């Protein structure tokens, strides 16, 4: 629908105004992260008097024993990167054998993965915690309050959608390619890792983006698996613990929020096309 020139100018102004409105919350975080404690209370909307204040705030954040921001960042990175690596590789492997094996077992397992996507997290969260405790008591492997326990849980919760996405993509790859490699003497795992997995790159990007944004921002699963007051905290956990402490230091909270947002925003600006495509695919599943 093409609009006339005059109308187009009005629409441009309207959209620009809405754009500024959408951006305003980011502006509030940004400017207040650069203010002193007194200024946050007296001058919320304006620009900071002294941008250099951010250095003081930054030092305060790094030195804060309640927040432990540096350690939380390291943990968030470890948990996100490890979870993504195993989700992508293991889901691709599972999806590949599910597509290439045509029998009742493969069909019912795939159906189970798809059906489980309607189970909301809230239904399994309470029994999950006590089940993880039961595992520790019977086998001796600590699942709660550990990195590996949380990463394992992310594999379990993240694999359904990932397998579903890989499954759809692999169906479109001609099987002749793989058969030729088998004739040339390549083993089945060799076929997957040398030929199939590299071909999956476009959908792997989607899988990494979808799971990455989810895991980086996730709050409830780390809260249950890692607990509060644990040495291992992710950024969202650390921030919620810090905000919940008795005096709200908004200038530090704003800087911590800003630091939590910056990595995803940078990723978004670089990989916008993939992110939007991936998230729409994820929604329409």
């Amino acid at each position, binding site marked *: 629908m093409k609009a006339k020139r005059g109308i187009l100018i009005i629409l441009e102004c309207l959209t620009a105004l809405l754009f500024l409105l959408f951006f305003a*919350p980011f502006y509030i975080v940004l400017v207040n992260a650069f203010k002193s404690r007194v200024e946050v209370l007296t001058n919320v909307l304006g620009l900071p008097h002294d941008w250099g204040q951010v250095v003081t705030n930054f030092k305060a954040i790094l030195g804060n024993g309640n927040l432990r921001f540096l350690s939380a960042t390291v943990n968030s990175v470890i948990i996100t990167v490890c979870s993504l690596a195993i989700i992508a590789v293991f889901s691709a492997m599972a999806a590949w054998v599910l597509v290439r094996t045509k029998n009742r077992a493969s069909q019912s397992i795939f159906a189970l993965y798809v059906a489980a996507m309607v189970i909301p997290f809230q239904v399994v969260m309470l*029994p999950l915690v006590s089940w993880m405790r039961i595992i520790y008591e019977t086998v001796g492997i600590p699942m709660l309050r550990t990195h590996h326990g949380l990463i394992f849980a992310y594999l379990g919760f993240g694999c359904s959608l990932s397998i579903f996405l890989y499954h759809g993509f692999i169906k479109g790859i001609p099987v002749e390619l793989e058969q030729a490699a088998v004739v040339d003497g390549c083993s089945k795992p060799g076929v997957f890792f040398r030929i199939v997995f590299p071909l999956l790159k476009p959908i792997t990007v989607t899988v990494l983006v979808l799971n990455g944004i989810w895991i980086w921002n996730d709050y409830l699963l780390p809260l249950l698996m890692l607990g509060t007051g644990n040495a291992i905290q992710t950024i969202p956990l650390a921030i919620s613990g810090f905000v919940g402490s008795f005096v709200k230091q908004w200038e530090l909270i704003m800087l911590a929020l800003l630091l939590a947002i910056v990595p995803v925003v940078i990723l978004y600006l670089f990989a916008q096309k993939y992110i939007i495509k991936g998230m729409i695919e994820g929604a329409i599943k």
Partner: protein
Amino acid sequence: MRKSLQDRLVFWGFLIPTLFAFVMVIIIPFVLGIYYSFTNWKGAAGAAINFIGLANYRAVLHDTRFFYSFSLTAAYALVAMAVINLVAFGLALLVTQELKLRNLYRTGFFLPNMVGGLVLGYIWQFIYNAALPELGKALGASFLSRSMLAAPRSAFFAMIMVSSWQYAGYIMMIYVAALQGVPQDLLEAAAIDGAGWWQRLRHITLPMIAPAFTVSSFFTLVNSFKMFDTNVSLTNGAPITEFMGESVFSTELLALNIYKTAYSFNDTAQGQAKAIIFFVVLVTISLIQVFLNKRREVEM
């Protein structure tokens, strides 16, 4: 024979890592959860678990806080669905015009979706409690001087506003994709025949993007139903209000109510019974969606 044994080994070997994790963190807890909801389970280690039939469900049905939270969540999900989709569709109509900076606008509208629910809840808590009152003072608008989070009704709309900000850009992208699929020549032909902007929108564009409306509506409905992170960081249920003669948390959505039942009130089994009811409602919504999709496929 050797060949088929190898195939089977590879099949199960490749499947085991995800299947094992999946069964351990979803299937077993899910089955345990159904069982626990019929027991006096306390969630603590070593405590005996006794079967008590429907007692938890009966208690939940007489729980005023749960009834309030359930009604609140239904209202919240429906209003959020309507507002998010309206805003998103409006934005999609705007950014599909030939605007000079339309790519920048799309990027900007989508951006809030990158921020985690917990983080954006804190951002908006600060906006409602500090930024908007200051803006009100500067503009002389007294209605802004009081935080929207202080009263039950305004806090409800405060949550709707935050969700709209978070999801509108995302849903907008789904509508943009759908709008780009509407054939231009059809619209031009209608324009030549004298159809105005509204007529073309009403009789050509809207029917053609109906599937996108279904997808987006259910997506936002289900997501709003499950909302937890932003609820915790924005209000954590506050303020308290009166409902059927009892004090309830006026902005406590279902997911938060379940969490608090289990962890603040240590009534894990009752929390689990609530979670099962929550699950049944969500499955019903999903089944309605599948049914509607099937019916449309038949029609086409």
